[in-house]
């Protein structure tokens, strides 16, 4: 018995040793040969941004014009390129604006074009002062014209200059108890066109204003859109008002993609065009050199995620964090003895937290599970078969999420919309399992496992959002082996769990 255990332990240590050597070796190699720093540098990061243009071609000549970002305060463009099989691509200036222009004699069906830029984030820097756009004189039909006048009159009377006028207008439209006039205009143009409306209103008073577009930079995001912003000029100065930016996003770096009036994407010869952005952040010692080196390296030690397209790289940034979540689950279950509902459910919840932010995520999770449990407890009277019951719970959870989203949007809490990021099948299983647990073992066990799951999810979230962890997992693939080795070591731990030191306490007291 003992010798078998020893032999097994030996082979385990051997495997763990090999994994550690492999993992650390690859990481050290990468550090010294490719100069990848161990800790995310204090120097400014480089953003790799990929814009994908999708449209449906009708078999005619196609011309696609996509605005390119230019050097600006806070950012410098290091490198640009495009991928577009069969298209001619040139970087030109159209109407004084840098533009990527794709052309082809004939194209048919779904088309995807890529534009990539490496952008250095910097403290400040020179940038072209954007000249103000020409003043147009927009007009409105009655009764809107007089409504616009009334709103403007009120705002003008409460402000001193174009900038304070703009702020006053925004606060009038954004107030939860906005006036009748503002509400009327909002109903006509819709929430997403508010920037255009405000720009036109300012223009009608002779103030140069335009809807411009910016991109919020957040590591590892995919399928992002540009945000409309309101830019207002006055004399030599100008100011950008972040209208399309939600609470919790204000601190993210904002790259102006289209800094003045005009289109962002113009497709001739195609329909249903769509523009999406993916981005990842990297910390590099030599500007822009490294991504290229890593991407082109062909030796197996240089095996790198960096050779993939940016959208896939962004996806891997998340995938490579999953082992960290698994490690956290192992630690908390084996060392601490927390009980969770479903072994890796907390990791999935933590992933959802990354999308929603922690507080919103916690509140949303508790709301959905609590309401789900109530409905499910009624359902248990109906005595349904398991598969049908879980399917019913899934639909219930989706309904709850839809109701919460609509409700929170109505009362002006856009945060509430993020609840849709939760994995619904997982939530349904959680509700189902918790409900059975309640019936069989009582609320005590539900509370224990519910707390254990949430605590694990929060710890996993903190680990997975740590800048250092993200930097290491993405840049040093070898560390995955190290995590694997750690998990295997944990799997052979026979010592006590932290909670057992409490559980068996009475025993120690009686015997002392």
């Amino acid at each position: 018995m003992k010798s078998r255990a020893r032999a097994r332990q030996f082979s385990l240590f051997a495997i763990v040793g090999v994994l550690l050597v492999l993992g650390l070796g690859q990481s050290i190699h990468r550090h010294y040969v490719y100069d990848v720093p161990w800790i995310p540098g204090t120097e400014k990061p480089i953003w790799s941004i990929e814009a994908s243009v999708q449209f449906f071609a009708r078999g005619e000549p196609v011309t696609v014009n996509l605005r390119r970002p230019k050097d600006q305060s806070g950012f410098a463009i290091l490198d640009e390129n495009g991928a577009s099989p069969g298209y001619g691509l040139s970087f030109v200036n159209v109407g004084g604006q840098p533009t990527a222009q794709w052309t082809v004699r004939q194209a048919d069906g779904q088309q995807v074009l890529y534009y990539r830029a490496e952008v250095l984030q910097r403290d400040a820097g020179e940038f072209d002062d954007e000249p103000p756009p020409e003043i147009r004189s927009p007009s409105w039909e009655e009764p809107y014209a007089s409504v616009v006048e009334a709103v403007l009159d009120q705002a003008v009377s409460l402000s001193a200059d174009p900038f304070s006028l703009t702020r006053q207008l925004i606060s009038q439209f954004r107030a939860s108890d906005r006036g009748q006039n503002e509400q009327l205009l909002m109903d006509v143009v819709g929430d997403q066109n508010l920037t255009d409306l405000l720009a036109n209103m300012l223009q009608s008073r002779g103030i140069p204003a335009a809807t411009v577009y910016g991109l919020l930079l957040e590591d590892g995001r995919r399928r992002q859109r540009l945000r409309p912003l309101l830019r207002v000029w006055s004399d030599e100065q100008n100011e950008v008002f972040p209208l399309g930016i939600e609470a919790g996003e204000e601190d993210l770096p904002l790259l102006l993609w289209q800094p003045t009036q005009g289109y962002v994407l113009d497709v001739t010869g195609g329909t249903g065009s769509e523009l999406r952005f993916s981005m990842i952040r990297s910390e590099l010692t030599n500007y822009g050199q490294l991504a290229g080196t890593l991407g082109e390296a062909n030796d197996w030690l240089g095996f790198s995620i960096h050779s993939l397209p940016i959208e896939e790289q962004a996806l891997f940034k998340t995938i490579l964090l999953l082992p960290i979540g698994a490690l956290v689950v192992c630690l908390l279950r084996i060392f601490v003895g927390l009980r969770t509902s479903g072994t890796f459910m907390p990791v999935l919840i933590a992933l959802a937290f990354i999308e929603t932010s922690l507080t919103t995520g916690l509140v949303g999770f508790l709301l959905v599970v609590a309401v789900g449990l109530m409905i499910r407890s009624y359902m248990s009277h109906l005595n349904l078969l398991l598969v049908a019951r879980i399917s019913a719970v899934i639909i219930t959870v989706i309904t709850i999420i839809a109701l919460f989203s609509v409700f929170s949007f109505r009362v002006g809490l856009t945060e509430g919309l993020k609840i849709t990021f939760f994995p619904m099948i997982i939530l349904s299983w959680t509700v189902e399992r918790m409900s059975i647990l309640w019936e069989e073992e009582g609320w005590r066990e539900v509370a224990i496992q519910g707390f254990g799951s949430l605590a694990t999810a929060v710890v996993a979230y903190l680990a997975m959002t740590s800048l250092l962890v993200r930097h290491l997992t993405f840049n040093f693939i070898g560390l995955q082996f190290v995590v694997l080795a750690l998990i295997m070591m944990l799997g052979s731990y026979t010592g006590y769990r932290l909670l057992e030191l409490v559980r068996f306490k009475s025993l120690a007291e009686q015997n002392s």
Partner: protein
Amino acid sequence: MMFVSPRRLRELGIVGMNQRNISLIGDLNPRHLYPLVDNKLKTKLLAAEKGLATPALIGALRTQHDVQGLEPFLEPHDGFAIKPAKGSGGKGILVIAARREEFFVKANGQELTIDEIRRHASNILSGLFSLGGAPDVAVIEELIKPHAAYKNLSVEGVPDIRVIVYRGFPIMSMMRLSTRESDGKANLHQGAIGVGLTISGGRPVNATQFNRRVVEHPDSGADLMSIQIADWPDLLEIAARSADATGLGYLGSDIVVDRRYGPLLLELNARPGLAIQLANNCGLAPRVRAIDDLSPACFRQGPKMRVDRAMSMFD
């Protein structure tokens, strides 16, 4: 101080969850043997084959068609229990203690019609009580009549005795008493009382509820420290033989004492919990070590010899 030091626990010989999972269950219980104990019907048939006494099997319902023919089947029996074969933790067990006219009377006095019994059986077959909702078989057993000495010890349900058998030797045991708080269930984490019993003579040493020491039953006030178990060596022998029958090296054997038949094997558990250490106020590790130190010849001895040895080794 909220925590005990791990060193203190090691001195006391407490086995923790991780150690149980790796050294006891992982090493000694091969996975392919689990179905023998996780399915009560299989356990019962195995026990019958090996000559181990269990509550008499009235029948097993395998299809909904069997459920329809239930009535004539139950005719000759006044009291019986219907259990899901793959249920765990006492889920889905329906105990009929008597009959009154056309009604079936539960242990708590509630009257059921034959239709309600059929419905329960049908629920069992559709997997309502089994793990993951897998289709199941309903097992009908003769009613156990607990020994007179156990009156007042359990609010609902019959007190059973859990014996931990390590490599064929009984090494620790406890009696499990359901309480009102545990809702008639015999699971310690749900609030049942565990009364540690000496291996040497089945005498109570300590009793706990929710990991806290108790001396009398909270519902009936019965004195827990004066419990006496009849036929103790026979009971341990059943436990030891159940280990031989299944081949499991770390086994929880649940036994009841019937006033007519003596000790009967109720069910087996391949992952017995660790609360038994609290009920006994004693760690499992020294006993495990003592068995490991025995000469190889001892493990080849018959169950009776092994029980005698264990009774002389452990208090």
